[in-house]
């Protein structure tokens, strides 16, 4: 199967929308960017939206009554509408802008503690494949409250092991927080099963959709989760913006995270009352230009069609899994078939350390990531300290995967492995 057949858009044409893909690196080599799970590249339309905002419409929002203030506010709130539409949010007021996915997850962990919804004796359930950003906030919450952290383990294939779900998710469970798509193993979590079980015991479900929203059509109105976090820079958007979606009634019950700016209703020195969501959770000047950029990113993704993006991701991942497994001594850490699988492929190359793999590939213009990918516990599960990771996005071609494979064969030879 070639990606041309599977993809509902012209990848070569799409690539021309991304200025950085024309970059020449040292030795006049073209950039082969296989690090999109780390951060995605930006189409010209996103870059231009940000530039135009600063050049013509820059003002603070909400507080300004003048023309450029109204323009900035319309652009900022318009981006909220776009994001709400993109993820199928029943209401725009359910979309909270944060600085990244990490803030969204920390926000949830902090306010659930502040609200007394998690306390001593309660349990929080996560999984061993989480990104640090969905582990550390819960460890911190447990430390502050005396709650206990528990977690799903992994199967040897790198999928969630749900065999002990009945003993893990119990009446004591107050929160279940789980990644939709793993940024290291690539595996897709069986959310429906977990959500059903969690809701049966009255626990809240938080979904870390940082790797899902960029790759999959998402509809929070049918997903069943209570709160969903994701991040702008992995979905063609700028750095400095993330999103927390939450059911409105839930958000409305929760206290604020940070204080200041327009998150208030009224302030006296003695006492403050708070604005309704989403303002309640947006302290200080929000990421205005970043929201504008994210809105443009959402427009770009919608124009391509998320079904097409998902189909391309699936096809390129299947192709890469096949080709990588042709290499002697290469071991994929995570599912080796493109079934319920996202586009991040972590692997080991026998006898060559991941940093050396990444360095050699870089000398050929191929950008992959080496390290623990902010998923140390998942690495520990597989007895490895670090891996190399290639990850793909809507602009990745089979030729780039071929270049990766050639680069890896060269790397083996270079290190005599």
């Amino acid at each position, binding site marked *: 199967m070639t990606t041309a057949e599977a993809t509902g858009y012209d990848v070569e044409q799409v690539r021309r929308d991304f200025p950085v893909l024309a970059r020449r690196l040292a030795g006049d080599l073209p950039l082969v960017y296989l690090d999109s799970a780390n951060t995605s590249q930006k189409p010209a339309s996103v870059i231009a939206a940000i530039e135009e905002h600063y050049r013509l419409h820059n003002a603070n929002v909400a507080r300004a009554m003048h023309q450029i203030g109204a323009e900035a506010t319309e652009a900022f709130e318009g981006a909220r509408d776009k994001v709400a539409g993109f993820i199928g949010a029943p209401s725009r007021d359910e979309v909270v802008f944060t600085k990244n996915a990490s803030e969204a997850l920390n926000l949830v962990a902090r306010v659930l503690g502040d609200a007394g919804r998690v306390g001593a004796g309660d349990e929080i359930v996560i999984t061993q494949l989480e990104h640090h950003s969905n582990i550390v906030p819960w460890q911190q919450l447990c430390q502050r409250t005396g709650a206990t952290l528990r977690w799903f383990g992994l199967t040897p294939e790198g999928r969630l092991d749900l065999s002990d779900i009945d003993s893990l998710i119990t009446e004591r469970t107050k929160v279940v927080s789980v990644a939709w798509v793993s940024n290291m193993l690539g595996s897709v979590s069986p959310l429906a099963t977990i959500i059903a079980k969690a809701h049966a015991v009255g626990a809240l479900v938080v979904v870390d959709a940082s790797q899902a929203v960029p790759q999959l059509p998402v509809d929070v109105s049918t997903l069943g989760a209570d709160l969903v976090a994701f991040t702008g820079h992995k979905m063609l958007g700028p750095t400095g913006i993330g999103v927390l979606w939450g059911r409105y009634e839930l958000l409305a019950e929760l206290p604020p995270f940070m204080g200041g700016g327009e998150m208030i209703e009224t302030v006296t020195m003695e006492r403050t009352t708070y604005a309704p969501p989403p303002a309640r959770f947006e302290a200080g000047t929000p990421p205005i230009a970043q929201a504008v950029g994210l809105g443009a990113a959402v427009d770009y993704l919608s124009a391509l069609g998320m079904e097409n993006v998902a189909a391309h991701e699936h096809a390129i991942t299947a192709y890469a899994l096949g080709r990588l497994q042709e290499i002697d001594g290469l071991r994929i850490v995570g599912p080796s078939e493109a079934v319920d699988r996202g586009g991040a492929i972590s692997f080991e190359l026998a006898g060559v*350390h991941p940093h*050396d793999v990444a360095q050699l590939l870089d000398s050929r213009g191929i950008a992959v990531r080496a390290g623990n990918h902010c998923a140390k516990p998942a690495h520990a599960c597989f007895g490895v300290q670090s891996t190399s990771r290639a990850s793909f996005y809507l602009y990745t071609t089979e030729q780039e995967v071929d270049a990766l494979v050639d680069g890896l064969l060269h790397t083996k030879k270079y*290190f005599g492995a």
Partner: protein
Amino acid sequence: MDVDALYQEIILDHYKKPHGAGLREDFDTEVHHVNPTCGDEITLRVHLDGDTVADVSYAAQGCSISQASASVLNDLVVGHSVEEGMTVLGSFTELMQGKGKVEPDEDVLEDGVAFAGVAQFPARVKCALLAWMAWKDAVAQAVTEKEDA
């Protein structure tokens, strides 16, 4: 940025056959250092005989650069005085942080001159320094312990 400047033959040789690798029982102090950005780790033991570095034994997990540099460290300090070792450490650190602009002194650094190319790869400087920082730490502890005793 020529990758061959980074991976000199000498470095690859030390990587494939590290000198003095493994943890040995005779030691005064043991330290464990981690490079948090990349996860490289080293457990390093120092055994002093008076002022002389009698042994440096180690178990290192990490890339070719960090492993080779532990091997070169072993070559350069074992059998020498602590003071001499510290001088070499100084030269090596200076070379690493020189952004490729420091000329290495082969008389002092011996095989260590092969790391000159690393200085052009800022992300890898920490790899080359990991074993050396661990050694500095372990020696300092060992000296303090001897003084206290």
